[in-house]
């Protein structure tokens, strides 16, 4: 009885599920400078959609596709598309699926770093592809971030508290099956050998497992940022990129409907109080990198809008270690990453850099 009354008061008290809180970055998420200090592989404007073809990496920069060797990495343009590239996935047979900001998923053949046309037809039924992954049986998992906003409007989708996302499985024959719906911006997918997939649901800050029959269960909950790309980890588990941090300020704004609507109506999206991929470059933005500085170090719980964070998840998908670029760093907005031969290649979209993190013999950060 008292519990029920208490829950009725929760919206007024800011308690229970109405609490304006964010989880701490501690334990395995203890801040460090790994990502900020990682050696540069190559500089590229807004790199994203990172994939690997042998020793050659492919990365998107806006509407263009670049290839570069991991050891000597001057990027060379290998393709251009009609719209910005949002996501990409390369199959073992060399089929490159590319999700574009106009909603299409198109295909190319990749052979020794060269791009050629593919016999596969474009998929036109999507409006906001955000992540792609090939299953072992040749099917393609497609994350549809939102039905109402394109990928370039992700900030609006978050501010609107959108949950119209879905995950699809496109069989080799081309028929598409919706596995799960009502998702809050699925933004990364990892296909598992048993036919299921791990999906990062950005706006709910969690990872879910979607089985082949569409059943979903939560794998990791209450992450301190917005999860995006997932990649297979050779030591078991997965690598996860979180493209921006959660903050109490923005959690508060998300709960204030009229404030959100007025902000969206009257203010330029670049100036919204919302997560960002890039560190601030304007003195007009006082909050980024503000708050506490202790021991000469900017504390990670400063209300920063952008951040760089990569998590190593163990076989149970629990965070095991992390690499950070903190509020005062530059390598923010990591959306895609891939492991290759004892190192983790990370594309920092906000830092215009592709960097390499060395791994130790156990598959953790060296």
């Amino acid at each position, binding site marked *: 009885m*008292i519990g029920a009354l*208490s829950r009725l008061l929760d919206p*007024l*008290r*800011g*308690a*229970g*599920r109405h*609490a*304006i*809180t*964010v*989880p*701490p970055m*501690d*334990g*395995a998420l*203890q801040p460090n400078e790994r990502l900020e200090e990682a050696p540069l592989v190559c500089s590229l404007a807004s790199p994203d959609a990172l994939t690997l073809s042998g020793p050659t990496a492919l990365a998107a920069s806006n509407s263009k596709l670049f290839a570069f060797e991991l050891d000597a990495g001057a990027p060379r343009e290998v393709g251009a598309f009609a719209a910005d590239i949002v996501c990409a996935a390369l199959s073992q047979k060399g089929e490159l699926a590319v999700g574009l900001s106009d909603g299409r998923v198109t295909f190319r053949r990749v052979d020794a770093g060269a791009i050629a046309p593919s016999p596969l037809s474009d998929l036109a039924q999507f409006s906001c592809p955000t992540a792609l992954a090939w299953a072992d049986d040749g099917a393609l998992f497609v994350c549809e971030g939102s039905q109402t906003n394109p990928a370039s409007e992700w900030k609006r989708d978050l501010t609107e508290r959108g949950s119209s996302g879905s995950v699809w499985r496109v069989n080799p024959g081309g028929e598409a099956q919706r596995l799960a719906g009502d998702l809050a911006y699925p933004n990364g997918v990892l296909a598992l050998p048993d036919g299921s997939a791990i999906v990062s649901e950005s706006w709910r800050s969690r990872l879910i497992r979607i089985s082949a029959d569409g059943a979903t269960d*939560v794998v990791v*909950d*209450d992450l301190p940022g917005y999860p995006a790309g997932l990649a297979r980890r050779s030591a078991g588990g997965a690598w996860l990129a979180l493209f921006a941090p959660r903050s*109490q300020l923005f959690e508060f704004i998300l709960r204030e409907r009229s404030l959100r609507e007025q902000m969206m109506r009257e203010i330029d999206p670049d100036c919204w109080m919302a997560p960002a991929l890039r560190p601030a470059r304007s003195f007009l933005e006082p909050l980024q990198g503000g708050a*506490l500085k*202790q*021991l000469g170090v900017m*504390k990670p*719980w400063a209300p920063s809008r952008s951040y760089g964070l990569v998590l190593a998840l163990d076989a*149970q998908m*629990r965070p095991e270690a992390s690499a950070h670029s903190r509020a005062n760093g530059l390598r923010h907005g990591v959306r895609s990453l891939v492991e290759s031969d004892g190192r983790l290649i990370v594309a920092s979209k906000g830092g215009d850099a592709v960097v390499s993190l060395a791994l130790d013999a156990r598959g953790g950060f060296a």
Partner: protein
Amino acid sequence: MSETPIIEMRGIVKLYGGVAAVDDVDFDLRRGEIHSLLGENGAGKSTLTKIMAGAATATRGEMRLDGKPVAFATPAEAMANGVGMVFQENSLVPSMTVAQNLFLGDERFFNRLRPLYIAAQQFLQSLNFNVDPWATVSSLGVAKKQMVEIARAVRQNARVIIFDEPTASLTPEEKHHFFSLIRRLKVDGVSIVFISHALEEALEISDRITVLRDGKLAASDDRAAFDRDRIITCMVGRTLSKDLYRKGEHGARKAREKVLSVQNLSQGKMVRNTSFSIYAGQITGIFGLIGSGRTETARIIAGITKRNFLHGGETRLGSRSVRYRVPREAVRDGIVYVTEDRKLEGFFDTMSIAENIGLNYIAAGLNSGLVVRTGEIVEVAKRWTRQLNVRAISADAKIVELSGGNQQKVVIAKSLAQKPKLIIFDEPTRGVDVSAIAEIHQIIQALADEGLAIVLISSYLPEILNLSDRILVSQKGRIVEEFRPETATEEKIMYAAVH
């Protein structure tokens, strides 16, 4: 220094019911020296000093003050002769203010309160003790009560002051002030008897050290003749240092699943938007000075006190947001809190061990059936007293009859009987002797090895450094720093706690 000791005791024997608490002990205290008296609980330290201060009388033996035989019948008589004692047990009047306690016994027929409070404030400030003279003693925490006790003894201008575990509840910073104070007293010619379980303190402050074991004199020598290992060997008759601070055999334990996530928790001015996580299979040490909000945070988690009514933050147990109104709800969710003040909150001291453990067992709803069977309770109590090696004549023994270390083990047994998955230990070895510390540390380590989530709140840095798999530092109501044990040092932790 004069050649004649200010206090000289020869062949002191004190029998309780035919058992010798002190057995033929010689002890002398020189003018202007700091003399540490060490030993395990039950070694006879407190009894010997109580005889010195008139709180007990010797069965046999002779005591001389300034070379003249004396036998004090009461503490007041000892004080009149310049011998004062700061007792381990609290001897303040809880319903009176700090200032009234300081001047207790010195009142005039008509008192003006304002000068009394001003004098009390000036005196406390001169000792660097941050205690409000207007506060009633019952509203003070353990540490501040201890400060008032110390201040009262110093104010009475005693020539000999006996401190029985004065630093047990002080923070490192307050200990620093306290040591400055007793060094100042020493310069003024006051002789100090210093009883402590913290051996580092005795080694730091003493001119001479006397060690008692089982009521007998084990060693007495200048400070230079002792090191930590020798003291321990004299105290317990064997080397304990490896057991005392046993590092995890394979370094820091790996975190398992996240058990608890404290997010932006707030309570008045004590807990301010603090956030941290606790993992299963790990000991998370929390260090901080008094007033840093460690205990208050722990008590909110355990449902003992409440967070702010409005926007007080969130505690997540697993993936569930929880807010406990009473401790029983937390206990039933597997969260238990082992109090820092065992005498006040840890047990019912006139009840037996079995009754105490049984109460917690029943409170957790673990008893089978609607009717509580005495046999079941006794069985549970026996199992835990055996597992934790509680040394008592029987499970029927009353808690008050046990030593500090065994009392603490009963408090831990009470918590473990509730089958917790998260245990918060708040100063678990405060006022506990050296061999019991080793046993309690082993218990804590074993619980973490079994996969329980452990929170260890301690003001004792070696304890934090050697037991913790992660170290969090609390300052001004929030967690300000996290250290891995391999990179943490006392200096780094203290810096984070103060700055």
